[in-house]
């Protein structure tokens, strides 16, 4: 799907593609894009926005009914391709590089205008055609399909019923950082959510009681957990295991992804493995664990992502 047969990137292309994404957003949410809404989204003067819309119409990517602009079928496919590039690139950054999560969006925003369709498909193949990006957004398929989802904000989720994180919005940055610091990722399970008086939400996450500030809760979208999610009643984290304690692994947390996850699986940290915490370093972290007869040192923020059944009594040698 090549619409402009050139590899050098002009600012025109960047603006057109950003405008297409805005129109796609508007179409998805059922309102029409206007000169004003586009000028706001691109932070450009009205005249500039009007000219861009004119160009989109000229290329047959958008049509206008009155003030409201909508994408044509060609325009929709093009916009989905840009979105696909952006989300695939974010997935690649998350899985195969050590780029911090706050930078994913910015980096992907640059890359989305540079990658050609073939390169994007090659990237998708390499990543095994992922369905969702690291924030939980669906990635359009190469045929241009993307499901519409009704997302429920955690802030309006009923108290008491378990929830599963479906999506975490990455803007504004400061709030996203807070959500990340809580160790949340798509597929993380939240149990017994309860609204507190100040609007924040308290819930049990992977064996810990966590309080989510009200502002952060609005970034998090949830759904009911599937029938396959039935964690044991006594879940804890490996980092909570005292020195000398032993426990069986339940699973790796959903926030443990990419090379970190592969490395742990390779070391034999799989469901059912018995792990014993042997000793801590002089500063408390890292700690060393006896995993299948090998002594492995893990930092605390890694051990936090290994979920265990509540410690069992140490076996005598």
């Amino acid at each position, binding site marked *: 799907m090549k619409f402009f047969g050139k590899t050098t990137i002009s600012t025109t292309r960047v603006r057109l593609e950003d405008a297409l994404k805005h129109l796609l957003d508007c179409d998805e949410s059922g309102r029409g894009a206007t000169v004003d809404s586009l000028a706001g989204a691109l932070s450009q003067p009205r005249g500039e926005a009007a000219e861009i819309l004119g160009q989109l119409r000229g290329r047959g990517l958008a049509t206008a009914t009155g003030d409201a602009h909508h994408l044509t079928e060609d325009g929709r496919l093009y916009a989905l391709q840009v979105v696909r590039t952006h989300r695939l690139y974010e997935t690649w950054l998350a899985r195969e590089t050590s780029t911090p999560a706050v930078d994913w969006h910015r980096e992907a925003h640059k890359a989305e205008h540079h990658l050609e369709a073939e390169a994007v498909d090659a990237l998708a193949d390499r990543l095994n055609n992922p369905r969702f990006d690291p924030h939980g957004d669906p990635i359009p398929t190469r045929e241009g399909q993307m499901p519409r989802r009704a997302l429920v904000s955690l802030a309006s989720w009923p108290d008491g019923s378990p929830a599963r994180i479906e999506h975490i919005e990455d803007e504004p940055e400061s709030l996203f950082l807070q959500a990340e610091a809580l160790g949340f990722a798509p597929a993380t399970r939240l149990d017994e959510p309860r609204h507190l008086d100040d609007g924040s939400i308290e819930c049990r996450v992977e064996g810990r009681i966590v309080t989510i500030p009200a502002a952060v809760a609005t970034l998090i979208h949830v759904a009911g957990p599937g029938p396959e999610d039935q964690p044991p009643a006594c879940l804890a984290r490996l980092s909570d295991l005292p020195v000398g304690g032993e426990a069986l692994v339940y699973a790796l947390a959903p926030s443990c992804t990419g090379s970190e996850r592969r490395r742990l699986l390779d070391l034999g940290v799989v469901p059912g493995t018995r792990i014993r915490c042997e000793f801590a*370093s002089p500063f408390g972290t890292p700690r060393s664990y006896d995993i299948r007869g090998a002594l*492995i*040192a893990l930092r605390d923020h890694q051990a936090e992502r290994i979920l265990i059944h509540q410690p069992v009594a140490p076996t005598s040698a």
Partner: protein
Amino acid sequence: MKSTEDLLKQAAELRWQLPQNLHDRIAESIHGEAARIAGRSVTRSGSNRRLAWQQRLDHFLTNPWTAFPIMVAVLGAILWITIVGANVPSKMLGTLLVEQGHALLTEWFLAAGSPAWLKGLVVDGMYLATAWVIAVMLPPMAIFFPCFTLLEDFGFLPRVAFNLDRVFQKAGAHGKQALTMAMGLGCNAAGVVATRIIDSPRERLIAIITNNFSLCNGRWPTQILMASVFIGSLAPKGWGGSIAALSVLVVALLGFGFALLTSWMLARTVLRGEATSFSLELPPYRPPNFWKTLYTSLIDRTLIVLWRAVVFALPAGAVIWLCANIPVGDVSLAAWFVELADPLAWTMGLTGVILLAYIVAIPANEIVVPTILMLTVLVTGAAGGAGAGVMFEADDATVRAILTAGGWTTLTAVCLMLFSLCHNPCSTTLYTIYRETRSVKWTTVSALLPLVMGFLLCSIVASVWRALT
């Protein structure tokens, strides 16, 4: 009966309804199933638990009270063995290569009737520089690297990385950087190669760029000489040696601090990134295979590093000799440059001679002191030299006399010690950095970053010193 198309369409829709982390969960259960099958069908003999003495040793080596004294003591012991143990073979090599070899070659060249410039360039320049590098460098490396490898094989070094990881984590680096820095105390080029043990490219690059702050073997002689000639003499009688040793230790620790500081700065700016998966295996303690270790560390580390140093020392020797012998107007190129560099050097508390010595000694830090002595004699005309372009060494008293005649003070010595710690890596190390990173950009950063820091550090120390005295 549905058509294929309908089925595919239905599959495409159902695909979106699966849990988001389905792949991760399938991979996890495959691993788990493999472990279960292995557990059912593989029988193990003996206990799975670690031996009691290993547990006690681990406790001893990682305990907050004992861990750090032991680490410092072991490092100190290795350095002591290296410095003291290398003395004798270094002297023997020096006598053989520098004194006798040089005299013999001079004789041959004169007998063959070669012109003076050819003999000067080849024998006084290229041969002497190379001989010096071998004599100073080979014995310490042949002692340091095997000791290091023995500790590694025994299982001590992984515990050091384990103990220090928290400090490096705070700086945004990897705990294994502690090992590459310790290796850098032997030779920075070897330290840079050793960073291969760090998986993450980002943290590895940090370790490569900061390795230069580990005071390498080639720089210890400069530190020790300055400390004993200038700083030790300030101390009351009988304490000179200890004060000198202490000041060298302070410089080495300062290097450790700079390495952490630089790592921290890099990890906050250009090399931002997540702390990647850290998993360090702490292998069981086992008696090292002494002879095999000796052989492999000699071949893998010592000889390779030595060969590269020799390759760089040959042209350096030629440059040194040419500097001292090519005239510019009525003075030599060296004297002309020294005069030119003096104002800049003064700002840094150094002399033009030192700056010139560091430029020509980029290939190998070992020849800094001999070059400084040769150049000082050349520029001041003080007695005791061995001729224009001929490097030499002398005992402490003569060194002091020559350098004082060259306008040196305690400040000069202090600033030289700091500059020796904080300047561009030698060309062997730079070449190794390029080979490991394949990046001109990062090689340039590795060269300029410590140089700029050294310039600032020396200038600050010099101006504070001058304001106070």
